[in-house]
């Protein structure tokens, strides 16, 4: 057993309290590891310790690990499903699955890649099951199961917002959402991870268990389809 694992015989609660202020400064919820190499390195060390503790059955360690990634996971699920209720289900299923299988995690990839794999598989299942009632429908469901029109969403809460620009942005969002529904689940996933979440295509390939080259080709097809669907928009 590696030496660093023995060094983590501390209550995870105490550990997280004492380092919370440092972590809050350096490791923000929205921070992408690639943008700050020092923070990424520190996070990797934190994660390794937390993963080993979680593998020994320490639930507090697992919950701490969840907090490192759950904002990004929820954001991905929310945008892909278009529904707060479905996003919560994906979030729940993903982290429960991670908890039950963390004993199988062998550090062959980063925990980031591993958890994203779980989430994307759940989202792909969701996309495959999802039926679009009308081809150009902008109607979807909210957390209570009620229907609403995408055109009515994304209300601008900023003071002094430009109503005309706000309307144009909502219309654009709705049109793009409809165009995205015409992509295959894999095309949608590659585009989502690259365009909305800024992942490198190499990482996208690792997450989807494919090559970078395949991810590139999929991105090309997805953007070609989107250009076709949105050709009249400027």
């Amino acid at each position, binding site marked *: 057993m590696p030496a660093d694992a023995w060094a983590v015989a501390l209550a995870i609660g105490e550990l997280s309290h004492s380092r919370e202020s440092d972590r809050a400064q350096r490791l923000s919820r929205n921070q992408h590891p690639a943008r700050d190499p020092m923070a990424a390195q520190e996070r990797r060390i934190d994660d390794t310790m937390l993963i080993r503790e979680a593998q020994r059955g320490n639930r507090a360690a697992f919950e701490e690990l969840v907090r490192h990634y*759950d904002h990004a996971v929820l954001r991905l699920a929310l945008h892909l499903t278009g529904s707060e209720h479905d996003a919560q289900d994906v979030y729940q299923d993903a982290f429960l699955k991670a908890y039950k299988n*963390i004993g*199988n995690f062998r550090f062959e990839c980063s925990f980031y890649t591993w958890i994203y794999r779980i989430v994307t598989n759940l989202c792909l299942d969701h996309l495959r099951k999802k039926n679009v009632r009308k081809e150009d429908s902008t109607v979807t469901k909210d957390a209570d199961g009620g229907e609403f029109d995408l055109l009515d969403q*994304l209300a601008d809460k900023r003071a002094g917002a430009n109503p005309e620009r706000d309307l144009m942005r909502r219309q654009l969002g709705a049109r793009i959402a409809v165009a995205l529904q015409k992509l295959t689940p894999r095309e949608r996933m590659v585009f989502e991870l690259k365009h*909305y979440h800024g992942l490198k295509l190499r990482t996208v390939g690792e997450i989807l268990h494919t090559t970078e080259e395949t991810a590139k080709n999929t991105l*090309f097809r997805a953007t070609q389809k989107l250009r076709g669907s949105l050709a009249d928009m400027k």
Partner: protein
Amino acid sequence: MKCEWLRENIVLYVYGELPDDARHELEQHVARCADCAAELKAEQDFHILLVQDRAADPTPNLLAASRMRLQEALETAQQGGFFSRLAFDPVNWLRQVRFSPALASAILILGFAGGIGTMYKIRPTDQGTAAPIQKASQAPDVSIAGINSITQEPGTNQISIKYNTLATQEVQGSLNDQRIQQLLLYAARNNYNSGVRVDSVDLLAQKTNDLQVRDALIYALQNDTNPGVRLKSLTALGTYVKDDANVRDAILRALVNDTNSGVRIEALRLLEPVEADASVRGVLMTLAAKDQSQYIRSQARTMMAQLPEID
């Protein structure tokens, strides 16, 4: 640089996914090709449109509610123990396989194909030193390529280690032997030892009538990190500068982009038979006016002076 290549890779350029050398080539091509410049502008405009649509952040309430719900579920959830990893869940497996026929086929093929993994079971002796008690197979010149997994059965001293091995092999034959050619092509692209790459390019230079060989030499000219390999590839390709447009373009790129002056000077020399070509003429004009190397500027001017005037 072909227009078709550009159109297939323009999305990667816009998303910043092209390697630096390919990005540079694309920009050079766009500067000369109006159609591709228009296509690039259209793609960039479309990208600007898409960027205006952002993925919304989850609200603090949604995140907090999700965390609370997960916490409640974790209180009753159980982690998989050692034996649960071995348990086979046929229902879950069928559900996954139903949507993944390719995955199912791949698993079956891998299961029946001969693997290269070897598993040893090591049991500590009374003196505390491990001694192998069972070997599945062992090759005489075996070296370890990597360790896949290390597991210990709980409550026992049994440790299982899965590792991959490398086995050195040798093949002999003539340059006309297909296997020899395949290995030479592989060596020219992939070997970590530049001496081996130089040797392979040297031999492949004798078979430049083969298009696959020419492609490998073009690849080496454009991508190899060793200038000696690039120079040998360049010299080998020189014979085809008049007959093969891909070779001419590759040599032009080497003249413009290569970091080694020896490679650039040789490229300039090899382009003399095609100096009247429009693309070559265009590059010579630019080099004559702007190149950092005085020798290259001077040679480019000399070549331009020898060209007939265009009406």
